């Protein structure tokens, strides 16, 4: 997590400073013409987020949840729309929790960094905020209202619009659009593997690829060694270029490579013998990331 936070701060810190978001003098949510806004006074923090979203709170806390503001918009047609404004410590944290709840086949929109609208729901990512807009009502007026309010909130927050740069390194062939995830903690179920970027692929058999930013080559090496301690010796074979194919007792077949501060690999495809060329392309792309 620490690595993730540092990474995000380096990447996005300067952008956050320029944003008007979080100014104490202004309301949490904007007025929208034609809608009456009521903002709930309570500011939900990590110790009472459960009061709003019950057990789902645990995962939000893993992504450094800071606070939640709630608001309701109502128009003359009695359409009522709820806005939940979740603020996280960094843009990467917000992307992480947003990516945990997003399906690749949603109807995506240009709102915030990225957003989507489904029946009664419009969710989007904006800088360190995850914005959820919803209504229990149905119909075109509701869907239009979600969109209008979504754009107003996005414009009002005025937050940076970029996805984590490291995602650009993942090869394009077979890549499932909008499948990217950031997993803050315990990747593959190992407590020491934190801050993993994961992308799903559909090329022949489906598989997933991941990158962990180890901060520096030494730390990446440490992670590799620690991971290998969990793999039986007979489950480790060398690939032609020195990288490894592993039989992880919990996660199945994994091909693992490393370059500079990065640890990366593919998993989830038990049939294919090797995706070495894929990994090589990923390594090359990581090498040119700035």
């Amino acid at each position: 997590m620490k690595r993730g936070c540092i990474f995000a701060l380096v990447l996005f810190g300067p952008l956050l400073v320029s944003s008007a978001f979080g100014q104490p003098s202004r309301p949490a949510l904007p007025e929208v013409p034609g809608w009456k806004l009521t903002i709930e006074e309570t500011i939900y923090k990590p110790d009472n987020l459960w009061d709003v979203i019950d057990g789902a709170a645990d995962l939000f806390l893993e992504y450094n949840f800071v606070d939640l503001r709630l608001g309701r918009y109502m128009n003359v047609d009695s359409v009522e729309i709820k806005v939940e404004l979740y603020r996280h410590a960094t843009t990467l944290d917000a992307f992480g929790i947003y990516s945990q709840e997003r399906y690749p086949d949603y109807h995506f929109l240009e709102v915030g960094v990225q957003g989507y609208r489904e029946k009664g729901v419009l969710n989007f990512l904006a800088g360190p905020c995850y914005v959820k807009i919803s209504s229990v009502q149905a119909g075109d007026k509701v869907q239009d209202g979600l969109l209008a309010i979504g754009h107003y909130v996005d414009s009002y927050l005025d937050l940076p619009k970029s996805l984590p740069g490291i995602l650009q390194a993942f090869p394009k062939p077979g890549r499932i659009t909008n499948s990217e995830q950031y997993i803050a903690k315990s990747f593959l179920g190992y407590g020491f593997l934190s801050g993993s970027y994961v992308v799903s692929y559909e090329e022949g058999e489906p598989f997933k690829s991941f990158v962990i930013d180890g901060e520096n080559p030494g730390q990446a090496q440490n992670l590799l060694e620690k991971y290998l301690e969990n793999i039986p010796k007979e489950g480790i074979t060398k690939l032609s270029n020195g990288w490894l194919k592993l039989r992880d007792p919990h996660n199945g077949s994994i091909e693992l490579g490393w370059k500079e501060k990065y640890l990366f690999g593919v998993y989830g495809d038990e049939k294919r013998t090797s995706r070495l060329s894929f990994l090589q392309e990923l390594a090359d792309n990581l090498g040119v990331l700035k």
Partner: protein
Amino acid sequence: MNRFDRRQFLKSSILGTSGALLTAGSLTQAGCASAQASTTEKKTITRKLGKTGIELPIVSFGVMRADNPALVRAAIDGGVVHFDTAHGYQRGKNEEMLGEIFKDRPRDSLVVATKVPPVETDNKTGLLKAGSTSKAFLEKLDISLRRLKLDYVDILYVHGITARDAALYPAMLEAIQSAKKAGKARHVGLSVHKNEPEVIQAAIDSGVYEVVLTSVNFKQGHYSQVRAAIANAAEAGLGIVAMKTMAGGFHDKERTKPINCKAALKFVLNDPNVTTAIPGNTNFDHLAMNISVNQDLAMTDGERSDLALGKSESGLYCQGCENCAPGCPKGLPIPEIMRAYMYTYGYRQPELAQTLLAELGLPEEPCSNCSQCTAQCVKGFDIAERISDVCRLARVPSEFLS
């Protein structure tokens, strides 16, 4: 946190696979089979879930993440049979992930619970709004079942009830009874994480709910009331499933002092009226540690001490109001000395306390000439006793403290 033996866990995982093939009727034996094979003659502790007829190992799994199916598979292989999810977790991905795993397992080897929320709840009052209809609830249940690839769940909870009137809301009672009648839920219950005693009593009074999923932990200020409500529910034949046993995982709001989660889990399960707990395992270490409680519920002295520290930490904290100061004829810097006391007994950093005491330049026995302490603490601290206790540190050579 205890380090777990991965080899032991892998061994138990492999051996435990056979346990998962047994039927629900012999869940007890399933748990025992894997446990007996993987540990030295220790049996899995199981308890009956009220009057449902289900018997469960005391440690179950609250599935809070959708990104690691391997963890759930390992749990099944390790003897866990009860999995708890919710309609709303990760917008359905949680249930979908479980569905992919469960489809390859004998249905009667698992006890699956999901939680479906009323559509509209007032966050402030906990009361349900008009949109919380039976129809809307049942539509959500159908979606959950599709995601889980199941025809029925073993336990269907109304999710997040925090008020008596919400527990007794007719549309919700109608919905869960309807789900049960339609064979979509074997048993029904509610989940509660606030105003637990009131809601648990309502669940008893309803005559409908069979299971209560309640938050309960060692840090609750009203733990005695929660425990009493649990006892009443158990007496009435309801099954009790515990959640939030780890009390958020940290002693402090800043999340810098981790709780001994194993001790916290044991604390809750030492109440025999609690059938099982659903800790949210996030990695294999956590999972193995929690599963180990299935065979060993006895608390060690160290675990008791860890929990006592957490419970008493707020009692160690001097708020620095200085109301006590005028009462001390010697004008001692009482708040600072209380800080040293907290360093010693709260943070277990006596060297820090010693440094602070040295800076204060106190006499060797600050209270020596007073027969009775006239300083009063608004929190009820025994000021003289604490001063006398902690100031002894000033006489201890520093090398013994580091």
